[in-house]
């Protein structure tokens, strides 16, 4: 199996090398963030652990990016995996190959991140580092195994567009469990029977992660509902096309936007919190972390945009051939970004504020809401803007996809 993996590695395309770099870099950043968070949480200081919690949670968007990156160049990869299946590879073999590829990349990346952390924190406790590296590697492997699962199912006629799936009950359970854990942690506070005084923090963090996964999955539904509405009323060809494209594949958008929505969510949450308590230094750190997350979100969007353009190439170049100007097609991309990003960002911003306000309802003062709402609006705006900018930046990519001179 390792031989096959190495054979495949030698024939990799440029897009696949980009994917390898992204996965490794993402794993490195995630490792570094989590290690730092663990160290901060060790301090006997509530401000420190608050920051640590925020940093640890930021590892979630980074992990999301790694997963997203694992899907880059999926068209090439899916074709290759399908060929492997036809050549006699069992579904398990293909999954193994994916896991091997993802795992090795994650191992390389997280080792790098771990090394950087150790070099910058020589004095600190180094015990958590290998644990974190192992966890990130495992995550990379699982993500890699899952990336090719459509192909694993059907060697012939690779499923290019999986059927649109509405939100399932499972998503709601995740959502509910998340809210439950978070509220439980907030209510019980210090009196937890395990992990000492950090018990409530751990439970709240776990609740948040679940909540966010639930929100991301539910985003599929929100995106599709919004796209359907726009599609029904669209008067312009660009809007109609954009809405239908989003409607046909809301999961891809929800996945790409999950990192964006997490950033907006944390931004809004941090804003609501900053209005309340004054750990200024910690808050500044959180804001810096948010900036990092924003960059991460942009990368995730670029990855998605590139992936999408590969899919759209044929129908778009046919449209261009029949006289649709490139600017209109670029307009389709921008409108898609607005249609998909707006609902997701708004929901993320509102729930970010709501989480803070609801859990601290007893002490939250009305005048703090102004600052919180302002931050939420800014964060939602930033999220949509990021999506639109990425769509605009994709113009050269679009031009490349449309250039007919390459095909004889």
């Amino acid at each position: 199996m390792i031989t096959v993996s190495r054979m495949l590695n030698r024939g990799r395309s440029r897009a696949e090398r980009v994917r390898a770099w992204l996965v490794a870099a993402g794993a490195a950043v995630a490792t570094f963030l989590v290690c730092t968070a663990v160290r901060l949480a060790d301090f006997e200081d509530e401000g420190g652990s608050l920051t640590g919690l925020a940093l640890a949670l930021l590892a979630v968007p980074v992990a999301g990016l790694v997963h997203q990156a694992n899907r880059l160049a999926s068209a090439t990869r899916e074709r290759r995996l399908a060929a492997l299946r036809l050549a006699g590879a069992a579904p398990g073999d293909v999954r193994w190959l994916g896991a091997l590829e993802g795992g090795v990349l994650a191992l390389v990346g997280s080792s790098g991140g771990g090394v950087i952390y150790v070099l910058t924190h020589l004095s600190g406790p180094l015990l958590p580092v290998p644990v974190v590296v192992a966890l990130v590697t495992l995550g990379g492997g699982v993500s890699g195994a899952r990336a090719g699962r459509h192909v694993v199912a059907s060697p012939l006629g690779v499923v290019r567009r999986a059927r649109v799936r509405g939100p399932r009950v499972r998503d709601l359970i995740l959502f509910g469990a998340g809210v439950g854990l978070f509220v439980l942690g907030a209510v019980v506070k210090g009196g937890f029977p395990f992990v000492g005084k950090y018990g409530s923090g751990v439970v709240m963090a776990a609740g948040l992660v679940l909540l966010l996964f639930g929100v991301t999955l539910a985003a599929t539904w929100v995106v599709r509902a919004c796209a359907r509405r726009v599609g029904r009323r669209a008067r312009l060809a660009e809007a109609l096309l954009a809405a239908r494209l989003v409607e046909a594949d809301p999961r891809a958008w929800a996945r790409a936007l999950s990192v964006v929505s997490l950033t907006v969510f944390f931004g809004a949450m941090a804003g609501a919190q900053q209005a309340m308590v004054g750990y200024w230094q910690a808050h500044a750190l959180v804001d810096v972390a948010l900036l990092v997350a924003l960059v991460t979100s942009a990368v995730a969007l670029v990855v998605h945009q590139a992936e999408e353009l590969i899919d759209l190439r044929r129908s778009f170049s046919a449209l261009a051939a029949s006289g649709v100007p490139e600017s209109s097609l670029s307009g389709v991309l921008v409108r898609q970004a607005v249609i998909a990003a707006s609902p997701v960002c708004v929901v993320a911003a509102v729930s970010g504020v709501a989480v803070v306000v609801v859990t601290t309802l007893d002490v939250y003062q009305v005048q703090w809401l102004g600052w919180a709402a302002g931050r939420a609006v800014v964060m939602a705006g930033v999220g949509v803007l990021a999506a639109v900018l990425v769509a605009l930046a994709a113009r050269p990519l679009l031009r490349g996809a449309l250039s007919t001179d390459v095909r004889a």
Partner: protein
Amino acid sequence: MLEGRGLGKSFGRTRALDDVSLTISEGEVVAVTGPSGAGKSTLLHCLAGVVRPEAGEVLLDGRRIDSLPEPESTKVRRESFGVVFQFGELVPELTAVENVALPLLFSRRGRQEAMTAAAEWLARLEVSDCADQRIGELSGGQRQRVAVARALVTGPRVVFADEPTGALDTIGGEQVMSALISAARAGRAAVVLVTHDNRVAAYADREVALRDGSVLAGVQR
């Protein structure tokens, strides 16, 4: 009406098209035939303004269109030409009627008007039943007829069809061809038909046979 003069084009070291000239009159159906690699598609792309020829010129009603800047060229394509490809190249995320309405919407026609016109064209090509189905749910023949409707909905002067029946069986191909030809004749549109299938070429008024990038001697008149 549409004229190519001394057209030439190379891809790398391959000479795809070498000094090819032809004239297409109003409402005429011309088949461009030849074995694969003879330069059929390249000739069609040059005439349709999708690819710029390296040598020669393309004229529409006596006006040069091969050297127009991209926005102008796009406008000519949108207003005067329609295209049908081998696999239709419809947008799979849209329904059949939306696909047909698309060129009109891009020409800034109102939604209601565009949808009505699109539905009429689907009816004319006998595919009204699938108006609200997505492209993935249609058979190959239905797809091609939807593609023909999309090419003709703007009332073009010339329809370019590149192996429109390439992926279909005999009967399916025949239905698409008769639909294309009768619809084009009804709309007084000329058709440039690229094909390697003689039975498809037989739908044309005349043939331009290509061999290795040049017009086969003795066939063109």
